[in-house]
């Protein structure tokens, strides 16, 4: 087992406000790591710093041992790091299939060779598999805008896996998904983790979901890691309970 992602003493402040205050952790190959914490604890900022959307004030990020701190999001993605966003981010005017092809095409060849390439960038079969995997076949040629919220959420997650990423960072995959669909989403994520052998980091507020999905959980509060361990440990930890329910 080796570390896929290594975050060392990451700091980010906006003006005078410190959002992430020296966070360090590693993610092992094949692991599903959950990051939880109350509102404003710095989870999304941490993600954005890892993913090149924000420049960290200090600290380092390593992917498979090489430094990737502050690398642009598109380059990072082509190195095998994919993500989803807290708010749904799909391309509503494109069909479901086109959404998926788009999610994989920039990993094929060079920009110039893509100009000469086939419209589907040779990804039709892969898109078809992904559609089947997330049970969206029936909707393949619908505009993404015409899907229900839950289906759009599935598409959003499916896009993150089109290029077979080494590491996927999912920001609230369960947000807004209705309870009946949650179980199937969790099961799909676990299946993809097993099949693709990819590594996940998941930010999630739905505790039941995150505790069932993840092997290990990291708890953030006020920009610091206050606890980590397996779901059962974390749940018992008084510091965690205090972070959520508040101090008196």
């Amino acid at each position, binding site marked *: 087992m080796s570390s896929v992602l290594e975050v060392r003493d990451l700091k980010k402040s906006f003006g005078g406000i410190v959002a992430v205050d020296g966070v360090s952790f590693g993610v092992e190959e094949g692991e599903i790591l959950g990051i939880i914490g109350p509102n404003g604890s710095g989870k999304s900022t941490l993600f954005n710093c890892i993913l090149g*959307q924000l420049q960290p004030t200090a600290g380092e990020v390593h992917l498979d041992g090489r430094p990737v701190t502050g690398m642009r999001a*598109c380059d990072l*993605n082509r190195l095998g790091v994919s*993500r989803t966003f807290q708010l749904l981010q799909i391309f509503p005017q494109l069909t479901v299939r086109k959404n998926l092809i788009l999610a994989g095409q920039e990993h094929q060849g060079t920009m110039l060779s893509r100009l000469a390439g086939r*419209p589907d960038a040779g990804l039709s079969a892969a898109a078809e598999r992904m559609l089947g995997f997330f049970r969206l076949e029936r909707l393949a040629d*619908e*505009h993404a805008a015409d899907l229900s919220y839950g289906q759009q959420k599935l598409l959003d997650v499916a896009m993150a896996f089109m290029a077979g990423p080494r590491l996927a960072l999912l920001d609230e995959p369960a947000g807004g998904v209705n309870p009946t669909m949650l179980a199937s989403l969790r099961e799909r994520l676990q299946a993809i983790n097993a099949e693709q052998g990819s590594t996940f980091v998941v930010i999630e507020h739905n505790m039941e979901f995150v505790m069932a999905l993840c092997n290990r959980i990291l708890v953030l509060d006020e920009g610091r890691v206050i606890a980590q361990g397996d779901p059962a440990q974390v749940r018992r930890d008084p510091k965690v309970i205090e972070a959520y329910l508040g101090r008196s």
Partner: protein
Amino acid sequence: MRHSRSLAAGIMLALGAAFLVVAPLGLKPYGIFILSMWAVMTIAAIGLNLTLGYAGQISLAQAAFVGIGAYLTAYLTTKGWPFWSTYMLGGVSCFAIGWLLGYPALRVQHHYLAFVTLAFNTLVYLIFRNEEWLTGGIYGISNVPRPVVLGWSMNGPREFYYFCLAHLALVSVATWWLLRSPWGLAFVALRENPIRALSLGVDTRRYTLMAFALGAGLGGISGALYAPLVQFIDPTPFALGLSLNLLLMVVLGGSGYFFGPFLGAIVAVLLPEWLRFTEGFYLMGYALLVIVLMAFSPSGLLGLADRLTRPAPRGAP
């Protein structure tokens, strides 16, 4: 339903192409001139449609590129350069300048970008007007020769029309190829959601610059044809007005639709000539059409047609 829709579109396309080929046989030279002008303006509009319609970057500088292409061709061909060299030079230099103009788009968006490109257009216009030693100032450059292709002179109106039409066909095929390649999808991704596109590996910076450069390059090609078409050029046609007009063409036809520029140019270039008797009322009607369309169908005439004929989406549960 979907099938019959594409069949109808195919038939209309074939009819339109056939019309374009036989039309000059029944037209007077002026009519042929106008039809040639339509082809030339359509090329410029196709370029702008790439930048604005597909990649979503607003540009009010397309007239400047048409002007640069036209002046390069006029200046060099009257000095004896062969047309092909000036034509290539026009396209390539506009591509390069367009690439540079794309840099502001990396910093600012929307209305700010509109104002930067607008200012650029006006600056280029000032150079056309004031650098008399180069551009002839307000007197312009006259006697721009028409090319000779493989020993066959394009001097007659009909010949030159077919020459322009051939270029339009070439540009259309190239653009169509580009848009069906993964680039087309990347451009749309840039327009629809640049942040998500970036996270999917789309190098949005490079595609943005490319969208500007390609659009500008087509503007330059359009200008290279414009100069020998009118055979006399002065600064007036390349002022901001043409940029706005090209923008309206693209939006009116349907920005982001492949045939939008063709249709927009019909409304903006051909119809005014056929409706000449209405005098200024035509332009007023045109402006009114733009306003009404924006209220009811911001995706233009083709967007409207699309909406009216599209089958209802299969109900998502």
